[in-house]
């Protein structure tokens, strides 16, 4: 059952670590109802949070809470330092050349919208082509729908093949039409597909297009090096990578960020305000208006520290092992249809349908055994439409997931089938 790629030694080491890792996440001890332990298989929607992250925010509120940047008193200086140190950590984590290129946002969605409201509105005009893909999350579709309605930009989509990969031949053809922007997900939150981001970005740059990488699902699970990938913009959320809700980030190339008009207007994003005019502040503050999510930024930094302490390569390896096992077991179930490519081309996501049983019912019945999976269109309605289904059930894995949990999932699915038999 074990993957041939991992020598026994590694497996043992990893297994030991996972028990230690699980102890870091208080919620994993929770009983969903008396006697029923939580089996959390919904990390793609949002990850659980280790104590280190919870405590960092707790400690901030108990010891250092103050508004930042403008204050000279001790608390304000502490808060400012904590807030900016977190930015440095995040920059390092994705190998950004400088922390000034990390803009704090609420989430991936706001990061992408920020680009749509600034760079895109400053640079795209009617008829300009934007390339997306059929596997995008709504957050990388709707901002462009809005801009299309407002500006008359053109949208084209890289198709998804039956086995859940992007059709790069069509991509090539689309590139010949001189797109201005190519925006795509690094990893699909439904299919799990890990797209060849570097290759796709190189191809886009070759025709002069700007690129946005939706890294909401990749940065939590893989080592992502923005300089190596070459992306112009990268969007991600803390809550999917052991961090708190309410904060995300946008990475951008310096020249682009510097040339962009501001987004939200208000305190902190200004250098000077007169009654009738203002001058924007330097990066990254230019894009951070008003009192930011201070505690959340600090929690974000703590999440990055935590992930680093485990090691992104170890996390990816562990998830790969779990995913391979899960796909193998799921495939054995009669009437179960899996979506997305094989384990070697995807992250820790298993979306499936069960013949004759609605995904909602699957999720609800699994919940009775404490098994948390998600059911629905996972904010990727066009992708589901493509496959001719309204919804899927989705189990997803993270550093704290175990094979035992996969076994419980499998057992639970058999129970569902029985109930509807």
């Amino acid at each position: 059952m074990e993957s041939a790629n991992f020598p026994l030694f590694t497996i043992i080491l990893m297994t030991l670590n996972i028990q230690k890792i699980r102890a870091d996440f208080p919620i994993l001890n929770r009983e969903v109802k008396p006697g029923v332990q939580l089996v959390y298989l919904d990390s793609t929607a949002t990850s659980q949070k280790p104590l280190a992250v919870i405590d960092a925010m707790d400690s901030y509120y108990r010891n250092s809470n103050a508004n930042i940047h403008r204050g000279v008193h001790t608390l304000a200086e502490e808060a400012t330092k904590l807030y900016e140190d977190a930015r440095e950590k995040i920059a390092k984590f994705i190998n950004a050349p400088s922390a000034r290129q990390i803009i704090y946002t609420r989430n991936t969605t706001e990061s992408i919208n920020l680009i749509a409201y600034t760079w895109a509105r400053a640079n795209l005009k009617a008829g300009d082509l934007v390339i997306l893909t059929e596997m995008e999350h709504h957050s990388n579709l709707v901002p462009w729908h809005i801009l299309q309605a407002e500006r008359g930009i053109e949208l084209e989509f890289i198709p998804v093949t039956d086995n859940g990969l992007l059709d790069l031949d069509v991509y090539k053809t689309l590139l010949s039409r001189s797109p201005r922007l190519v925006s795509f997900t690094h990893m699909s939150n439904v299919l799990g597909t890990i797209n060849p981001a570097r290759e796709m970005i190189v191809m886009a740059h070759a025709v002069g297009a700007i690129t946005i990488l939706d890294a909401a699902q990749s940065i939590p699970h893989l080592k992502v090096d923005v300089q190596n990938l070459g992306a112009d913009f990268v969007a991600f959320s803390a809550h999917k990578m052991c961090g708190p809700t309410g904060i995300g980030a946008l990475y951008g190339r310096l020249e682009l960020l510097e040339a962009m008009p501001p987004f939200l207007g208000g305190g902190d994003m200004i250098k000077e305000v007169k009654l009738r005019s203002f001058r924007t502040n330097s990066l990254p503050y230019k894009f951070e208006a008003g009192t930011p999510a201070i505690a959340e930024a600090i929690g974000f930094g703590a999440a990055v520290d935590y992930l680093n302490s485990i090691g992104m390569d170890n996390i990816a390896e562990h998830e790969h092992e779990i995913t391979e096992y899960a796909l193998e077991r799921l495939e054995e179930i009669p009437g179960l249809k899996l979506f997305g490519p094989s384990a070697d081309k995807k992250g820790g996501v298993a979306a499936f349908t069960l013949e004759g049983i609605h995904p909602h019912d699957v999720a609800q019945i699994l919940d009775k055994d404490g098994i948390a999976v998600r059911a629905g269109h996972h904010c990727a309605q066009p992708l589901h439409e493509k496959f001719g289904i309204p919804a899927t059930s989705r189990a997803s894995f993270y550093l704290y997931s175990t094979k035992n949990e996969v076994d419980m999932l499998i057992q639970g699915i058999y129970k569902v089938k029985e109930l509807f038999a």
Partner: protein
Amino acid sequence: MDDLYREVIIEHYKNPAYRGKLDPHDITFADNNPLCGDHIQIDLRVGDNNIVTDARFDGHGCAISQASADLLIESIIGKPLDEVKKLNKQDVLDLLGIDLGPVRLKCALLSLKVLKAGVYGLGEASDDLVE
């Protein structure tokens, strides 16, 4: 095994009595549950004294949404429209005989929302209809 999936619900889901379309009909309305893609269309025939003489639902979705549609249709045939207009959340929950969390509640109430939007002749179905 599970009160949420009482036999009656599974039964109405697997063998609905009122699935289908009515042609001609006097009232028709359809809507989705945006959260999960459940879809319900309801067709009504209305006779003298504004009595619902026949009704059908069509669509797809989870057992809760489809069973509640079947039970709802069953309950309104022969009823005056005025009474149908007064149906609320609790009536549907009584038909189902279960309690539901906020997310599944939307599944259960989709058919009522569609029904009332149709009966009231609204352009769009609103959650207010099923408070």
